[in-house]
């Protein structure tokens, strides 16, 4: 009896299993399902947060407004370099032509990073502005300001 008890004791002490062996198999399955559900729930939450923070629409709005404000402050003869590495990378992920991300028509700047995207924002400075990709590094856009 003592030997059996000792064996039982050893089994319990040295049992490498995280969950103690249960005679009832459905309780263990229940815990596994519980863990899996928790992981799925947390994964969905994390994916939601990442998708919201890295959304193309957010980058379109950010750079459209930034470029419009820069042009508003600029004077003819200026050449402005804007680092748009994250936006260019996003456009590449969305399979868009990175040379056509920034378009300036009349006094409206339009940023397009995805197929069904496009964020226009106007500037009040009555000058002529042209934007093109700096093909030297593919990370910056160059905006040239000239008289109208």
């Amino acid at each position, binding site marked *: 009896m003592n030997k059996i008890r000792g064996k039982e004791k050893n089994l319990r002490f040295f049992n490498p299993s995280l969950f103690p062996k249960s005679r009832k198999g459905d309780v263990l399955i229940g815990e596994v399902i519980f863990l899996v559900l928790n992981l799925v729930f947390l994964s969905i*939450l994390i994916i939601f947060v990442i998708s919201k923070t890295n959304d193309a629409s957010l980058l379109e709005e950010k750079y459209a407004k930034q470029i419009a404000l820069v042009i508003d402050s600029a004077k003819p003869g200026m050449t402005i370099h804007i680092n748009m590495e994250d936006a260019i990378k996003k456009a590449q992920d969305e399979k868009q032509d990175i040379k056509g991300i920034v378009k300036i028509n009349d006094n409206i700047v339009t940023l397009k990073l995805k197929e069904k995207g496009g964020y226009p924002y106007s500037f009040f400075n009555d000058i002529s502005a042209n934007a093109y990709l700096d093909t030297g590094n593919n990370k910056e856009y160059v905006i040239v300001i000239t008289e109208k």
Partner: protein
Amino acid sequence: MKNKIIFGKRGSETTITIYWFAILMIVAVAIVYMVTSAYGKPYDVRGIEADILANNIADCISQGGYVNANTLADSSFKAKFLEQCKLNFKTEEGFADASGEYYAEVISYDFDTNKRTNSDISYGNLVLKQYCELKGTTLPVCTRKNIYLIDEQQNKYGVTILTVVNKAEKNA
């Protein structure tokens, strides 16, 4: 002694599981709310835009503290204000107010006597001016700048530049 009431673990574990998921749901709802409120609102750049507009107008009417020729002293300056100061108040589609999203006003007065001169200029959507005394995220944003100028005859002027930017649909 034999008839012990044994409280089953399964019942209490189920209760804990329900509480656990309820807490998880509360935390998830809080995170979703925080993320949507932070990233759901657009960037509001109207304050900066109004400031830049006021600076551009100031640069147009003055240089180095002196009144620029053909500006405030010129009676035809009012008619060609936008052209001379290189301003374009046209905006993209999507704004409800067809009268425009900008308003600019320049009021000059004699610095010594505080009497207004006849060089007042205003351009844009006049309705926006009435919102300057009110506060609200969906209301137009106003900026006032006061500058001190001297003309060629060494007359001193105080100039108040008021600029208003609406564009609430894209900033609020």
